[in-house]
């Protein structure tokens, strides 16, 4: 009698605990599923659509976001610089290179949960392509730093890890098939505060 009870409880504990626990682990570990990586930037063209896989759908439902549609745009996030080190708010970075064709794009710094970082006093938290200062050949160079910088300066404040989010709006590259064809600028680290 006692043995039967023990075995029943054991079965239930393994089934419910193991089942729920494995879902929890899988949702926290499935960050990279469905990702498209281009030179340090990653995008999730299918997350938030019906084409997403089951794990992405479940994770997305828990996060409570509303993803941009194909006709709206696509967001890329960079967590690491071109040397492979994690991006930090106390460091200075420059972004250089060509950007794919889009009507316009925006760039902002965010924390790990993709919440926009507070900008320095009287600055806006994001830059966009229509206000960029360009070199004579049309290329762009953006400085991301907590210290003021000449040219295109994206100010950040605080300490700790950050990510950069580059969103292209009204672009032909928003579909999963076309997204691999594009090139994105490099994030170079130029220095860090002690």
């Amino acid at each position, binding site marked *: 009698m006692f043995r039967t009870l023990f075995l029943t409880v054991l079965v239930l504990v393994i089934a419910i605990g193991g*089942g729920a626990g494995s879902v929890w682990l899988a949702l926290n570990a499935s960050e990279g599923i469905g990702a498209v990586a281009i030179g340090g930037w990653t995008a999730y063209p299918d997350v938030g659509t019906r084409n997403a896989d089951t794990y992405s759908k479940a994770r997305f439902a828990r996060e409570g976001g509303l993803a941009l549609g194909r006709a709206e745009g696509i967001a890329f996030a960079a967590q690491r610089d071109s040397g492979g080190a994690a991006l930090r708010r106390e460091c200075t970075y420059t972004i250089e290179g060509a950007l794919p064709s889009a009507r316009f794009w925006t760039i902002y710094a965010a924390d790990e949960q993709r919440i926009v970082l507070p900008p320095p006093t009287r600055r*806006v938290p994001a830059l966009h392509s229509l206000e960029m200062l360009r070199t004579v050949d049309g290329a762009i160079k953006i400085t991301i730093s907590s210290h003021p910088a000449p040219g295109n300066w994206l100010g950040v404040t605080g300490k700790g890890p950050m990510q950069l989010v580059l969103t292209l709006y009204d672009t032909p590259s928003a579909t999963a098939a076309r997204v691999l064809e594009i090139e994105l600028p490099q994030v170079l680290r130029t220095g860090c505060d002690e």
Partner: protein
Amino acid sequence: MNRLVYALLVGLVGAGIVHISVLFLLPHFTERDAWSQLSQVSDFYTPTSITGTTATTPLIRSVDPLFSAVACRFDLDDGVVHVQAPGRVPFWSMSVYDRNGQNIFSFNDRTSADGKVNFVVLTPAQTIEVRKQLPEEFINSVFVESDIDQGIVVVRAFVPDRTWRTAIDDFLSGVSCALR
């Protein structure tokens, strides 16, 4: 001993079943998704700002800081939804999401007929009904046919700089999300 091994095996098979059921049921029962958060602050057919001002945190995460957006919930079982907004802005886009926040359909100001926000969300069956006798107010509308009943419409507008803020806020507060 045999019974213990048997119990472990049954437990593992059960864990697999629980894993799969939790995974598939999670999107339907979560209280953290966009629909649940919207339903806490506004009723059906009520356009609500999801970006918030600089002082308040946005209702929906991961919205571009250079954008303002309004969302409204609808239920196609009640009838078709007509979304309109007067005025022009540098860039606007819209998306239709289903009950689980999955993007069903989207377009922007260049894909609409005259650059104005004017579209109707309806089911295939309602399309047939509406096409029989096209109402006057739908003549310039874009028809968004979707096989969903409940859903969310989001209109986003680009705010290039602070001087545009008032104009964009006026534009978005003019968004109407009406049941016809």
